[in-house]
C-alpha cells in the first residue's frame, strides 16, 4: 500500500472530479434540442454566477429544468450505490458484497412500493419507507448472517440472497395484485430509472449522501484492517461490531436513498468499487471518495446513453448499467481480478 498523503488524495479526487465534470457536460449536451458546447458553457457559467435568470432562453430552460436535475440525480444515485457496494464488500470480505446481493435494495423497493400504495402522492413517504425497508432488511440480514455470535461471510451472503428473493416475491406479489393502468409506471420505476427527478430530490438528499459517506469514511482505516480478517482487526484494537454497525446503517441509508429516487439500478454497487480498485488500490481511505466519484461518472454516462440510444424514446438507466456491467464483470472475472 502506497503511503497516503492528503496531497495524493486531493490530486486523485481532482482528476476524477474533472472527469465527472466532463461527463456532466457531455450528458447536458445530449438531447432532443441541439445545444452547442459554446451555448452550454456560457449558460452553465451564468447559472453558476447566478446571472442567467433574467431572460432564460428555451435551451437554457431545457437544460436547467430537464437535463440538469437528471444529471444531478444520476450523481446522487451513482455515488450512493457505489459507496454502499464498497462498504458491503469490506464488511463481508466478499467481492459479491452489494446492496442487491444482500437484498437491501429489494427491501427498499418493497418499502417504496408500499408507500406508493398508502401515500401515492408523497415523495417524502416514499423516501422514508424505502429507508425503513432498507434498514429493516439490512438489520434482518445482519442478524440472520450471524453464526455462533459472529458475522459469518457465507451465512451472510446466503441470508442476503434468501432475503432478496423473498422480497422480490413480495414485490411481484404487490405488483400483480395491484397492477392496473395506474401501476404501469412502478414496474419501470423499480428497474432503475432517472426519468422523473422529483423536486425534493436535491439539496437535503445530497446532505444525506454526504453524511452517510462521511460516516463510512470515519471507519475507513478500520475497514482496511478488517479486510485482513475480523479476528486480526479485533486483536489490533478495532471495535469491529461498532464499525460494522456504522457502516451497515450508513450503507442501508445510501441504498434506501438511491432506490427511493431512482429504483433498483443494478451492477453499479458491485462494479464501480472493483474498477476503482484496479486503478487506486484497496485502501479504503482512497477507495471511498474515489468510488463515490466513479459511481457518479458511471451513472451520468449510462443515463446519457439511455436517453440518446433510442431517442426520442428512452430506456431505463438500469437496462444500460446491466448491459454495460455484464461484459465488464466478465472481463474482471476472466482476468481473475475479483
Amino acid at each position, binding site marked *: 500500500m502506497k503511503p497516503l498523503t492528503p496531497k495524493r488524495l486531493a490530486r486523485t479526487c481532482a482528476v476524477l472530479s474533472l472527469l465527472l465534470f466532463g461527463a456532466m457536460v457531455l450528458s447536458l449536451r445530449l438531447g432532443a434540442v441541439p445545444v452547442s458546447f459554446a451555448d452550454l458553457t456560457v449558460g452553465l457559467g451564468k447559472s453558476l454566477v447566478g446571472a442567467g435568470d433574467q431572460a432564460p432562453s428555451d435551451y437554457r430552460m431545457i437544460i436547467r429544468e*430537464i437535463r440538469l436535475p437528471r444529471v444531478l440525480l444520476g450523481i446522487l444515485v451513482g455515488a450512493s450505490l457505489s459507496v454502499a457496494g464498497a462498504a458491503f464488500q469490506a464488511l463481508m470480505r466478499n467481492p459479491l458484497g452489494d446492496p442487491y446481493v444482500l437484498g437491501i435494495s429489494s427491501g427498499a423497493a418493497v418499502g417504496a412500493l408500499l408507500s406508493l400504495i398508502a401515500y401515492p402522492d408523497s415523495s417524502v413517504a416514499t423516501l422514508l419507507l424505502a429507508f425503513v425497508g432498507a434498514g429493516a432488511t439490512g438489520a434482518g440480514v445482519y442478524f440472520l448472517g450471524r453464526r455462533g455470535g459472529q458475522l459469518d461471510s457465507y451465512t451472510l451472503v446466503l441470508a442476503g440472497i434468501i432475503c432478496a428473493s423473498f422480497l422480490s416475491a413480495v414485490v411481484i406479489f404487490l405488483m400483480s395484485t395491484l397492477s392496473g393502468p395506474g401501476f404501469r*409506471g412502478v414496474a419501470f420505476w423499480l428497474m432503475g430509472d432517472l426519468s422523473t427527478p422529483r423536486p425534493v430530490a436535491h439539496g437535503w438528499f445530497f446532505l444525506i449522501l454526504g453524511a452517510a459517506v462521511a460516516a463510512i469514511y470515519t471507519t475507513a482505516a478500520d475497514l482496511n484492517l478488517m479486510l485482513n480478517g475480523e479476528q486480526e482487526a479485533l486483536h489490533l484494537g478495532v471495535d469491529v461490531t461498532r464499525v460494522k454497525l456504522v457502516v451497515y446503517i450508513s450503507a442501508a441509508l445510501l441504498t434506501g436513498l438511491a432506490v427511493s429516487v431512482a429504483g433498483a439500478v443494478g451492477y453499479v454497487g458491485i462494479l464501480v468499487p472493483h474498477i476503482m480498485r484496479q486503478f487506486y488500490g484497496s485502501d479504503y481511505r482512497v477507495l471511498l471518495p474515489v468510488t463515490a466519484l466513479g459511481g457518479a461518472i458511471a451513472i451520468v454516462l449510462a443515463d446519457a446513453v439511455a436517453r440518446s440510444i433510442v431517442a426520442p424514446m*428512452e430506456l431505463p438507466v438500469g437496462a444500460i448499467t446491466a448491459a454495460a456491467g455484464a461484459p465488464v464483470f466478465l472481463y474482471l472475472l476472466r482476468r481473475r481480478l475479483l
Partner: protein
Amino acid sequence: MHRVLCSVLRARAASRGARAAGFAVALAAAAPLARAQEAAQPKTGQSAVAPAATVAAFREVTDEAGRAVRVPMEVKRIVSLAPNLTETIYALGAHERLAGVTDYCDYPAEAQGKPKVGGAVNPSIEQIVALKPDLVLAQAHGMNRPETVEALERLGIAVYAAQSRTVDGMIESTRRIAGLIGAGESGERTAGDLRARLGELQRRLGGRERRRVLFIVWHEPLITIGRTTFIADALRLAGAEPAVDLEPDWPRLNLEEVVRAQPEYLVFASSHSEAIRGTFEELRERPGWRLVEAVKERRVAVISDAVNRPAPRLVEAIEQLARELHPEAFEDSEKRKAKIEKSAVPRASPGPLAMGSFPFFLLSWPAPRTASVSGPVRGLVEAAAL
C-alpha cells in the same frame, strides 16, 4: 402486457391493410365466416333427416390471429379473457351466456359479479376449464398471451382470438364475434350504428386541421402510444394526430421531446377525472413539464378510459375527444340547446359547470381560428373545472 403476443408483422400488415382499404379487408375477413355458415347450414338441414343430430355441431372459422378454430354451432357458455371482450359481449346483449370474466372486467359494473378466471395475462386455466365454456374469447394483441390460447386449445376448448389494431378492426371484430355466438343480428346493428356515428363525426370534422396531441398512457415514466395502436387510429378519427410519431406500441418518451414537439393538447384517459386533475396540477409544478405550452395553458382533454379498450364504447370516447378538440365543429347542434339554455338561465350567471357537460357560455367566445398556442380553446371544460 404490450410485450406479449402474436406475430407483430402480421398485425401490422393487417392494420395497414385495414387503413388502406377498410371495407375490402372487412369483407375479406368476414368471408371465411360466411363460408363456414354456408357450409354449416345445409348440414343442419340434413340433420333433420339424419337420425344423429350432432353432425353439424361445429363450424370451422379462422380467427383474427389467423388460427383455425372449431366453434360449436350453439354457443351457450362464453368465457371472456379481456375487459374489452366482456364489454363487447354486453354490448351485443349476450351477457346471459357469459360464464366467466377476468379480474379486470369492470365494465359494465355488473360484469364484476360474474365468475372470475384471474388476470388477463395469467388466467387460471383450471378455472376456465371448470366453467365448461363452449367458447373462450381472447384478445390476441397486447392482452392475452399465446401460451394461454395454446393451453386451452390443447384441452379441446374453442378459443377465438380477436385482434384490433384499428377502430374499424374493432367494429369488424365485434361483428364476427356476434356471428360466432349466434347474435349476428345484434352484431350487424351494433356495427352499423358505430359506423354511422363515425361517419357523422367525419362529416362534422371534415376539412378541419388535425390537432397535434400527446396521448399520455402514463406520466411517470412518460409513456405514450405508437402509430400502429388502435388508440392512434382513434385519435385520427377524433380529428387529432400524435404530436410525436413513433413505431413501438407503448414507447417511453423523453420529456424533452415533448418540449420540442409542443403538442397542442395533452390527452389523458381516465375513469375518474378526479385523479387526473390532481396529476395535472402536479405536472404544472414540475420542472420540465411546465415548459410544455399545453401544460402551461391547461390545454388538456380528459376523456373516458373507454379509449383504452377496443370495444364498442371506444366510439363514445372518440366522439368525446372530438368535442374536446374541435368544439366549433359541434356548434350548430349545441347552439340550439344554448338558445334554450339562455332563455332559461340569466346571462350573468351561467350556472355551475359540470364536468362533461358542454359549457354553453363559452359559445359566445370567439372560436380559435387556427391551431395556435394561445386562446381560450376547449379542453378547457376540464381546465375550467379543475
